[in-house]
Every structure is written in structure tokens, then in C-alpha cells.
């Protein structure tokens, strides 16, 4: 990205290039209204930005156009980068796709190149020099906008993944001192770690005495994750809470036996209902013999 920070890294004869770019900027500023309208028309024709109304497209197009000209004029991409990020933040939630963003920037490039062609077509030598000055700059600008968009999109996706992870592992307090952790879906090592950390923190925060971990919604787990489950049960006990695991599938039962889990350390009950009943029975004692951690 750093290499794109400035447009100065253009071909030789920098002086004439900058003179040409100045002329270019003047041309684009002069024909702003007409070129902008042409661009919007092409966007609509190409069925890009369909999630937005015509007025919205026009407003955004105006801002992009001005930032574009500004980038050419100041020969820095910082303002444009900021604008691209801001634009992405606004349009990503509306479902605008990467190809649309790349598409509109390339359309603008095309609209401007055509207008340059129309202006200079009588002097082919000058036209060639103008395009030589314009194209590298236009490419940098297009890349900046596209990269800005993709980055923002990646950031949003990462955030959503985090949120889904959190949502998919709720720790529920069903009654005082009783937590339920229903686990659904695939458990990879990272999720397993998050689950454990979340549960242990919740035990402290809610002063839980009994925790029911229900894995009815987990079809299978590898030896690693199964080991992690055992670690979670032991960690919880060290905090003074008893863990009851419910809903073990035949596959998971096999995995646990195969990895040689000390079954004396694991309280298991067939289903969630039974687990909650057991938990309530345990809580019915004034004090649970946490040290033993076993149901008798």
C-alpha cells in the first residue's frame, strides 16, 4: 500500500508529466457536471449499485469524482483513501459487492479517458502523452479505492465472525448458581478455547455452583477438542463448580473412551432435561461436596 501513497513515482520527465496532469485537472474541473452525469448514466446502464437510489448514486458519484480530481491535483492518495474507507463503511451494510465498486471506478476511468480522447484526438502525439500521464495515476486511484473497499469488507467479515462465535456459545443462567452452556455445531480448537474462557469467567461472575454443558448439538469432536472438554471440566471444578455433561453422541462417547478420559472426573447425564434435574438435586443440598465432584 505504501508504494501507492503518492503519485509522484511516475515515468521520467516529471515536469512535463505534472504540467500535463495540471491541464488534465483543469479539464476535469471544467467539465465536472457533464462528465459526472455521463458517469452516473453508465453506472445505471451497467446495473451497478442497484442497492442504491439514483439520487444516492448521484451524491456518491459527485463525492468520488471530486476526490478523484483532488487526488490527481494534490498527487496524494491519503484523502482518497480516507474517502474510500468512509464510502465502504456506508455501502457495505447495504450489500454492495466488490465487483460493483471496482466496476464504478473503472467506469469513471473510462469516462474520463474518453473525454480526454475527444479533447485531444486531433493531436495524436499530445493525446499519447496525456494518456501516459493519466493512466498510471488513474490505475493507482482505482487500486486505492478497491483495496480500501476490500479491506473494510474483510474487517466487517472478521467482526461478524467474532459476533457469531460469541452468539453461538451463550452461557445461560437458568436459576441462581446454575449455568447452562448449550454447544451447537462444529468446535475447532479456537472456539473450544473461547468456550472455556467464557464459561470460567461466567462461573466467577455468576457465582455458579453447577454447570450443565449440553453437547447434543455437537455431532463429533476430535481427540484434541475432547481433551479440551475434559480440561474445561477440571478447570471448573478448581473454581468450585461441578460440571455435568449431557447429550453425548455415540461418536463422542467413543472418542472420550479412546483418549482414555478418567471417567471418574466426568459427570454425564443422558439428556439436557436429566442434566438440569441432576443439577437441581445437587443445588438442593445446602452445600455441594465440590471436592469430590461426583454424583452419588
Amino acid at each position: 500500500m505504501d508504494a501507492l501513497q503518492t503519485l509522484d513515482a511516475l515515468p521520467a520527465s516529471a515536469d512535463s508529466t505534472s504540467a500535463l496532469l495540471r491541464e488534465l485537472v483543469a479539464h476535469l474541473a471544467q467539465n465536472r457536471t457533464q462528465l459526472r452525469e455521463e458517469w452516473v448514466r453508465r453506472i445505471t446502464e451497467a446495473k451497478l449499485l442497484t442497492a442504491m437510489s439514483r439520487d444516492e448514486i448521484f451524491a456518491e458519484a459527485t463525492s468520488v469524482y471530486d476526490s478523484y480530481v483532488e487526488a490527481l491535483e494534490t498527487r496524494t492518495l491519503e484523502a482518497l483513501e480516507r474517502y474510500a474507507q468512509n464510502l465502504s463503511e456506508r455501502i457495505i451494510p447495504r450489500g454492495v459487492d466488490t465487483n460493483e465498486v471496482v466496476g464504478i471506478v473503472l467506469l469513471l476511468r473510462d469516462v474520463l479517458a474518453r473525454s480526454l480522447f475527444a479533447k485531444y484526438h486531433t493531436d495524436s502525439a499530445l493525446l499519447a502523452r496525456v494518456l501516459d500521464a493519466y493512466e498510471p495515476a488513474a490505475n493507482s486511484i482505482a487500486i486505492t479505492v478497491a483495496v480500501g473497499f476490500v479491506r473494510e469488507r474483510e474487517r466487517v467479515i472478521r467482526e461478524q465472525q467474532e459476533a457469531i462465535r460469541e452468539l453461538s456459545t451463550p452461557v445461560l443462567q437458568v436459576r441462581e448458581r446454575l449455568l447452562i452452556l448449550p454447544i451447537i455445531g462444529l468446535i475447532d480448537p479456537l472456539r473450544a478455547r473461547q468456550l472455556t474462557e467464557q464459561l470460567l469467567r461466567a462461573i466467577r461472575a455468576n457465582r455458579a455452583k453447577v454447570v450443565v454443558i449440553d453437547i447434543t448439538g455437537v455431532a463429533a469432536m476430535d481427540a484434541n477438542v475432547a481433551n479440551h472438554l475434559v480440561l474445561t471440566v477440571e478447570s471448573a471444578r478448581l473454581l468450585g463448580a461441578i460440571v455435568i455433561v449431557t447429550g453425548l453422541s455415540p461418536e463422542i462417547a467413543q472418542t472420550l473412551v479412546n483418549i482414555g478420559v478418567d471417567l471418574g472426573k466426568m459427570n454425564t447425564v443422558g439428556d439436557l432435561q436429566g442434566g438440569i434435574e441432576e443439577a437441581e438435586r445437587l443445588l438442593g443440598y445446602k452445600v455441594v461436596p465440590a471436592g469430590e465432584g461426583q454424583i452419588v
Partner: protein
Amino acid sequence: MEVPILKQGPYLIASIQDALTDADLIQLRDALVEKVGRLRARGVIVDVTALDVMDSFATGTLRDIADMIRLRGAKTVIVGIQPEVAFAMAHMGLSLEGVITSLDLEEGLSHLEHQVKTASR
């Protein structure tokens, strides 16, 4: 650094304030085992909330404390193990089996209360 041991009713409470060296832990063990008899305590609570690492030596010493106190006729409860410390202990295979653990001082006390009550019933 010496760990202060307070007597509260029939119980002794040792609350660790800071990271302990091995010698501090041994000193704590000896002091508890001695005091539990001299002060006729029914139970001992060791509060480890301040410990950010419990390695095999610390865990082993806590287990020794619990065993020795039991031989002296009283109960031990370890309270305040931090979630992350508990996780590391479980990883190491140091699960303090057979030693009673509770969330915090309050829980530990109510556990001992219950034990004493059921014993005298």
C-alpha cells in the same frame, strides 16, 4: 514474604497477598499445620486469589497442606483460584483431586460451616 493467618471462630484463614517463593509456601504449610492443632481449629481456608501462577510445586504444597490438615483432624478448602490459573493447572494435569475448592472466601466458609454442622448432627 510471610502469609498472614487469621483465626475466625473455629477456622483459620490464610490469605496469600502476593507471588510466593517455594520457601514462603513451605513456611505457610508448616505454620498452618502447627496452628491448626494449637488453636484447635476445625477448618482451614487458603485464599489463593492473588496467585497468578500455580505450578507443580505450589499445587503439590497445597495438596500436602490439605493432607496434613486432614491428619490433624480438620478440613481444608482452597478458595479463589483464578479462571486462567485453573485452566493452566488442568493443562498441566494438576487438578488437585480430592482437595476441596471453592469460588471465594464466602463460599469456602459456608462450605466449612456445612461440614461442621453435618459432622455434629
